[in-house]
């Protein structure tokens, strides 16, 4: 499915690239319109999902709000456009959305050939395993001899056989299903002892489909790299820079301990780095360099939060998804989230 989607998107991209190029007008358009149009998932718990009141929540959704807060000073000036996996790239290429924030894996093909460019990584995902807690499994390497439910037709099944081979787990057996719903149903009915897909998908399934989510654990090993992040159209470097530095500002804020709750007190912090971030010092206006107001990062943190706030609120250990920070911890805490200095 993924491959087909990429191929379809590639054709669409080729057709678009041949047409008139949209050069540098994106930010102007957004300002003129007075709101940001953000392409999100149609419904993936923890990443972007609408509740019964139609209010969107999730990491991808909060990233959109943060961008709006930086540009307009108002996190609510966002229109969310749900897109399917097949439509998503076309929606961005055609200008239907300004930014695509939809759990999309950053790959070379997408970055280089679809007329779009990734701005950073909001979630380091990877293929993982889920097992019933009562089996007492602590590591995916213990799964030799187990039956593992997997959906066919994606890179998931290839990663699985590679992992089993590399670890000499010849007695493990993959049970292959055509649709993801069939695979999860088989796993929860007890047909398989383990289920494998992207870790965020595991957490999402566990919170949604398991009778008692606490009965299942997600094993620590990730056997593939799936960095997810927002992407923008090529051709407007200013907007690209804004989106990129909004992500960095959220990470930087967490690093300096500036969060949604204490951001107003932190305005009085003597730390020059915090002062620069929050735009307190008029002589050191970082926002101007990006074409934004001086308090752009303050608005992001005040209205949406720092990276840790967003993570904990949407997918963290206290949410139904119960995902530990893992790779998504700050670099200073053993993770991969790292921001270049804001100076």
């Amino acid at each position, binding site marked *: 499915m993924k491959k087909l989607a990429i191929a379809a998107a590639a054709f669409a991209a080729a057709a678009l690239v041949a047409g008139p190029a949209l050069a540098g007008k994106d930010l102007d358009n957004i300002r003129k319109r007075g709101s940001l149009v953000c392409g999100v998932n149609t419904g993936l718990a923890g990443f972007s999902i609408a509740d019964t009141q139609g209010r969107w929540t999730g990491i991808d959704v909060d990233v959109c709000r943060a961008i709006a807060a930086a540009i307009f000073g108002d996190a609510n000036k966002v229109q969310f456009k749900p897109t399917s996996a097949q439509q998503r790239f076309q929606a961005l290429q055609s200008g239907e959305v300004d930014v695509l924030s939809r759990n999309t894996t950053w790959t070379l093909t997408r970055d280089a050939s679809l007329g779009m460019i990734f701005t950073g990584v909001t979630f380091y995902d990877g293929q993982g395993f889920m097992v019933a807690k009562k089996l007492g499994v602590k590591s995916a390497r213990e799964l030799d001899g187990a*039956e593992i439910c997997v959906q066919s037709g994606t890179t998931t099944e290839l990663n699985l056989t590679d992992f089993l081979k590399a670890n000499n787990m010849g007695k493990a057996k993959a049970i292959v299903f055509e649709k993801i719903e069939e695979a999860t149903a088989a796993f929860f009915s007890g047909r398989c002892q383990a289920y494998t897909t992207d870790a965020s998908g595991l957490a999402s399934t566990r919170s949604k489909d398991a009778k008692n989510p606490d009965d299942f654990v997600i094993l620590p090993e990730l056997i593939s790299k799936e960095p997810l992040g927002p992407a923008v159209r090529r051709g407007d470097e200013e907007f690209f820079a804004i989106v990129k530095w909004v992500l960095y500002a959220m990470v930087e804020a967490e690093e300096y301990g500036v969060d949604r709750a204490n951001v107003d007190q932190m305005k009085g912090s003597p730390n020059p780095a915090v002062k620069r971030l929050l735009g307190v010092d008029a002589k050191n206006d970082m926002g101007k360099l990006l074409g934004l107001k001086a308090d752009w990062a303050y608005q992001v943190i005040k209205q949406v939060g720092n990276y840790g706030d967003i993570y904990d609120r949407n997918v963290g250990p206290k949410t139904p998804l119960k995902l530990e920070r893992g790779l998504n911890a700050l670099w200073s805490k053993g993770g991969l989230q790292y921001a270049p200095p804001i100076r």
Partner: protein
Amino acid sequence: MANPNPTPVRAPATGAWWNDRRVRAVFYQIVFVLAVAAGIWVLVDNTIENLRARGLRTGFDFLGARSGIPISDSIIPWDPDDTFGRAYLVGILNTLRVGIVGIILATILGTIVGIARLSQNWLVSKLASIYVETIRNIPLLLQLIFIYALFGFALPEQLDPLVIGGGFFLSKGGLMFPLLKLEAAHYAAGSVFLVSFAAMIVYNVWAKRRQNATGVAPPRLLPSLAMLLLPTIIVFLAMGAPAEFDVAAKTRFRFIGGGAIGPEFLTVLLGLVIYTAAFIAEIVRSGILAVSYGQTEAAGALGLTRGQTLRLVLLPQALRVIIPPMTSQYLNLVKNSSLALIAGYQDVVAIENMTMNQTGRALEAIMLIMAVYLTISLSISLAMNTYNKRIALKER
């Protein structure tokens, strides 16, 4: 006396040659063939052109590439390092396995139900009617989903299976059974058995001829059984009668060892057998009813029992009516097995779908699938038509 059907004497062509009917007939046929050929040529040419324009590679070279795909159920050994070509073979064998076993079981069940529906026992005939009317009016796809879900709910956990005894276990992992550890004695006994089987057939042919020639029927059942079994048993015992079995044993996650039939295969097999048997039952019933009641009465007058009447009088005549529609049911069963992927059974369709997704060669993969079904279906047709010719009424 005038010929009642005079051949119309054609008047010599008076007009131009293009008014000649024979010339026109040939002309139209040539035009038609050319039109069809042109149509096919345009389609093929267009496809090749489009594929080239999109930079898509074509050809069957991918069959030799490492597949990397997992296959859970295979008769021949499978490793993800094997090629897509071997995966294709695994798929074909899986389709054949479910098709052949399915046809045999569906025929047996269908015949029983068909005869039961004609039974004079009210309860038996009503039960058979309910079975037929219920099953053949529910889509097979739903039945497969239902059966697979039922296995998921009804069967015991894999670590706590239902112990049937003798090394048989039933759980969510399917049916596990003991496998004989093959040794020299088994191969020897097997060879002797094959020879005995041939000898038994020769004896029966001889006995039949003798009965036809002299009217005296030599005993057939007991000598046949003796010929078939005694030498095998003697050889087996003489070689020490080794009987060591490989029985499934509990491991950390599930029972491993011995033989196993997964719930995926069981689902597909059961679904196909139950569904097709309902249709076969009706075919068998109609075949029997097609034999006039006079035949039954005549058989009764000759003093044949009900069983003999069925076996010697009714069924042989009914078969002539039964075989042609039965052929199409067999074809249906094999083609319906492509629904297997609903239950996670990896038949040729499921495996070629995976191949398609991993290689992007959609056209080629579909062609491979079509080739398999065409070959299997034509083989069944050929076999059944040959059989049909043999049992057809010989007009003398």
